[in-house]
């Protein structure tokens, strides 16, 4: 029932979205308020229906309804409840529904909060949002339906078929009788199965209905049709006939098709086969036993948060996009669309950034390669909208302050959302395969077409308004050192980074494959030389731009403002000399300058905040804390922005340290042996094999003791987890053991242990200097973004009312 309800409500949500688009556009064009209100309500209903539909899928997951193919593909009976809940976004179909409900939630939020304040924009904005939601829901309903179920279709090419509606002559795969199941074998023989067996231990024919065989110590490579094996695993109980002494050790083997032969050579000498009689009315569940559960790599706490955050970031950019499009459609090309979408943009930017940081942490913890960013195309696909979104966040300030860059901001709003759609297309279609990628599926072409259409229509609308002269800037740039000019350079660098990363991840591989029939992969040898100079320029601008003024700044004035931050940077660089020196005492001068450039941006943020507080102290006689708090409260956007800059600085220090000074070694040790890396000594104490956990994983854990300068500092337990029910190639996970300090991470992976002797094991050890600053910087960045959400402190309402009344009186006096 839950499945049917989920399916029905998802379909109705599609209808609601389509109705909302028509009603809002027609209502707004014909000035039919009732129709507009009806469209608005349909948009809200769309969210309600999609939320209900997702809830139904979640209930299916919790109740382990394995006849639902999605539930079968992402959960298993032994999976803990926590991971079962995260399975909602564990694979394509569920994550598409989840994606749709989040997007619809953003739309409903914008309708709820912005309808009254931005009435002119809202009908078109809502129609745009509903159009995008309708596309994703349609993809979910027609191509990747999460409510599709398994059906057993005897006498067909494939025994098991997944379909939304019940195929002809089929049975629900989770609930059919033995007789129904055996109908494919016995159709020509009036309900009887005759299976000639030629086996050594038992040599017999079984002319009985519903013969199953059980065996012990069976050769696992015995070829058994997969559908039959699935059935055998699903047997609820068996009644064995035969003389096996211990029936509890029976392994259900198979229903054997007519003429199946089991050869003695397939069986070990101790194997015994026994025919098993089944009650024809006994109910079978053909799917439960074969449910494999979530991809092991996704069974990590980070995966509970990383995908939702990333999705929130991705879908959240629909709001600025929709408002930009609504501004173009309605002709309200003032800054209203920016004001309406500012907080939504910041929220999307925050969650996308958080998603990226959590993704990095997940990779660091689970993927077992000692790093957090591998320039993998799927990582990059998520990074691209963040880059354009960051450019947009900076650029809209120029339009708000100076009425400039109107066209450019439109392009950035469209570009950010276009990058979101492209990233979704690239990762979900299998365009570029990677560890993150969903399998190749039928949604590739529709998503590509949608991406091209959305981008083309948006660009056409921008150019149309521009040709009509409606996006003309109110001011011109007059000074190369003005803050707006520096923001333009900042935008240019963000876009250049976007182009470089897009080209390396998608452009060059696709071009070479299409035009030269050659597969290429661009790795860090491409990315590091290309993006490093651009990031250096970005950090320098991050330092200079806040010191310049809107409108115009003289070189002299800017130079004077730079002196103190530069002095502070120089002093700190001296402190960073030990961190820029290798173990053998060689100073890496480039790394030291790298630290200096990164620190400069941070010092400017600190200095500007301090300078502002000091100015208030001298002008208003406030104490330092009061001056500081007043500053922060009166312009949270600016000082939240500075906190973000400090966070970016801390991340930059972590990236330089952990990239340039990472040290690694691979060593094989016998129990009791140790090795030395830098001033650390690692002793292998032994292995705990075959630890079985509640969720069915088997853990092999190595025990290590780590010493530094002769002092024991940590006991580490790196491990390998195996998931016996999961396909080979995906069935293991390497969990590092690490000793974390602010100085570095001592990070150990258990590589292998059985290749030489049972007592030896191979370890890969990384020393990652300053890596934890990447996470700490991320937290500061998040805090800064949250802070910049805070509403600006304004005068109390009573005083504002009095001032307004006074203004009105003055105006009356003037007119009189």
């Amino acid at each position, binding site marked *: 029932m839950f499945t049917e309800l989920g399916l029905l409500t998802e379909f109705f949500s599609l209808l609601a979205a389509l109705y909302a688009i028509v009603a809002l556009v027609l209502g707004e064009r014909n000035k039919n308020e009732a129709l507009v209100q009806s469209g608005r309500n349909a948009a809200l209903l769309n969210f309600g229906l999609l939320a209900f539909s997702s809830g139904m899928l979640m209930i299916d997951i919790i109740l382990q309804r394995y006849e639902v193919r999605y539930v079968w593909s992402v959960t298993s009976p032994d999976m803990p409840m926590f991971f079962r809940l995260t399975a909602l976004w564990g694979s394509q179909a569920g994550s598409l529904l989840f994606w749709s409900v989040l997007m619809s939630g953003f739309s409903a939020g914008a309708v709820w909060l912005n309808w009254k304040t931005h009435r002119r924009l809202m009908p078109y904005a809502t129609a745009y949002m509903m159009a995008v939601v309708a596309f994703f829901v349609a993809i979910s309903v027609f191509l990747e339906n999460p409510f599709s179920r398994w059906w057993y279709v005897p006498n067909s090419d494939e025994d098991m078929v997944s379909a939304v509606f019940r195929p002809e002559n089929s049975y629900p795969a989770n609930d059919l009788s033995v007789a129904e199941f055996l109908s494919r074998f016995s159709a020509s023989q009036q309900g009887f199965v005759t299976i000639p067996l030629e086996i050594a231990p038992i040599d017999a024919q079984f002319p009985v209905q519903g013969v199953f065989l059980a065996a012990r110590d069976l050769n696992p490579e015995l070829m058994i049709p997969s559908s039959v094996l699935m059935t055998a695993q699903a047997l609820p109980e068996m009644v064995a006939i035969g003389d096996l002494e211990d029936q509890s050790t029976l392994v259900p083997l198979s229903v054997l098709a007519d003429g199946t032969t089991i050869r003695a050579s397939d069986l070990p000498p101790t194997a015994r086969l026994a025919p098993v009689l089944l009650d024809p009315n006994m109910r079978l569940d053909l799917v439960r036993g074969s449910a494999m559960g979530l991809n092991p790599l996704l069974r990590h706490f980070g995966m509970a948060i990383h995908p939702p955050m990333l999705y929130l970031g991705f879908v959240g950019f629909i709001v600025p996009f929709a408002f930009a499009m609504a501004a173009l459609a309605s002709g309200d090309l003032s800054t209203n669309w920016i004001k309406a979408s500012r907080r939504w943009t910041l929220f999307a930017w925050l969650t996308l950034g958080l998603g990226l940081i959590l993704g990095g942490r997940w990779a660091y913890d689970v993927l077992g390669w000692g790093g957090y960013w591998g320039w993998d195309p799927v990582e990059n696909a998520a990074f691209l909208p963040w880059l354009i979104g960051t450019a947009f966040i900076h650029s809209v300030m120029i339009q708000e302050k100076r009425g400039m860059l109107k066209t450019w901001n439109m392009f950035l709003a469209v570009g950010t959302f276009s990058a979101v759609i492209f990233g979704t297309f690239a990762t979900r279609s299998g365009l570029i395969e990677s560890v993150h990628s969903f399998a190749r599926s039928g949604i590739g072409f529709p998503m590509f077409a949608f991406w091209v259409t959305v981008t083309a229509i948006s660009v056409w609308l921008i150019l149309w308004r521009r040709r009509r002269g409606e996006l003309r800037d109110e001011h*011109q*740039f007059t000074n190369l050192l003005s803050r707006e000019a520096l923001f333009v350079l900042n935008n240019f660098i963000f876009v250049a980074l976007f182009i470089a990363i897009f080209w390396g991840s998608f452009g060059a591989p696709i071009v070479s494959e299409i035009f030269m029939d050659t597969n290429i992969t661009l790795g860090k040898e491409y990315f590091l030389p290309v993006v490093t100079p651009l990031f250096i320029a970005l950090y320098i601008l991050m330092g200079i731009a806040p010191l310049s003024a809107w409108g115009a700044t003289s070189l002299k004035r800017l130079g004077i403002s730079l002196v103190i931050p530069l002095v502070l940077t120089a002093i700190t660089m001296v402190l960073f000399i030990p961190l820029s020196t290798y173990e053998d005492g060689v100073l890496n001068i480039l790394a030291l300058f790298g630290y200096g450039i990164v620190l400069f941006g941070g010092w400017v943020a600190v200095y500007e905040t301090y300078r502002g507080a000091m100015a208030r102290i001298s002008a208003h006689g406030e104490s330092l804390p009061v001056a500081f708090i007043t500053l922060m409260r009166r312009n949270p956007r600016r000082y939240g922005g500075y906190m973000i800059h400090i966070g970016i600085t801390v991340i930059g220090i972590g990236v330089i340290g952990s990239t340039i000074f990472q040290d690694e070694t691979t060593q094989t040790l016998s129990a009791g042996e140790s090795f030395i890396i830098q001033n650390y000594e690692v002793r292998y104490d032994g292995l705990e094999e075959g630890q079985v956990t509640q969720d069915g994983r088997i853990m092999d854990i190595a025990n290590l003791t780590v010493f530094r300068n002769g002092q024991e500092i940590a006991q580490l337990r790196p491990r390998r987890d195996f998931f016996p029910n999961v396909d080979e*190639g995906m069935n293991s996970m390497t969990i590092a053991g690490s000793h974390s300090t602010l100085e570095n991470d001592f990070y150990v992976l258990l590589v292998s242990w059985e290749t030489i002797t049972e007592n030896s094991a191979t370890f890969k050890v990384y020393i990652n200097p300053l890596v934890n600053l990447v996470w700490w910087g991320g937290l500061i960045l998040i805090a800064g973004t949250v802070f910049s959400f805070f509403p600006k402190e304004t005068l109390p309402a009573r005083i504002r009312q009095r001032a307004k009344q006074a203004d009105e009186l003055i105006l009356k006096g003037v007119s009189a």
Partner: protein
Amino acid sequence: MWRSLIIIMILMGIVGAGVAQEATPEPNPTRPVTVDEVNKVAKDMFCPVCENIPLDTCGTAACADWRNEIRLFLEQGMTEEEIRTDFVRRFGDRVVGVPQDPFLNALSVITPWVLVAIGLVVVFSSFRTWARYKAHAVANAPETPTVTPASKQNQFLDQLEEDLKG
């Protein structure tokens, strides 16, 4: 004289052979190669089967075999570049981080810089246009009374207050 010439030629031949031997050293299978040396080579290569997975960390049996192959190559005295070239010859340019094929290499590495350069030209030509606009605006602006410059601290305070207003 002929005798001397023959002796010189023989000596040159011996020296030449020695030089040639130095240029292509004999394989030295006894040279111990550490896992770290193997990983140093494999780190900059990709698994030929799994897309975008570095060869040093790929967990498949095939990659373990390829790492073992690298170890054998290193034992034979092959350089890192020779090993990479050998892998590219067998599996294509996808196994390295930047293609070895000269055209593909140029296409991959130069294209973003060309695009960045074009972008820079556009940005700076825009700035020049704006500067001309400014010069034109200044020339046509009505005369304004001279204002006594405020102190630096006042300027900063004014700007700060303006910013705080939003």
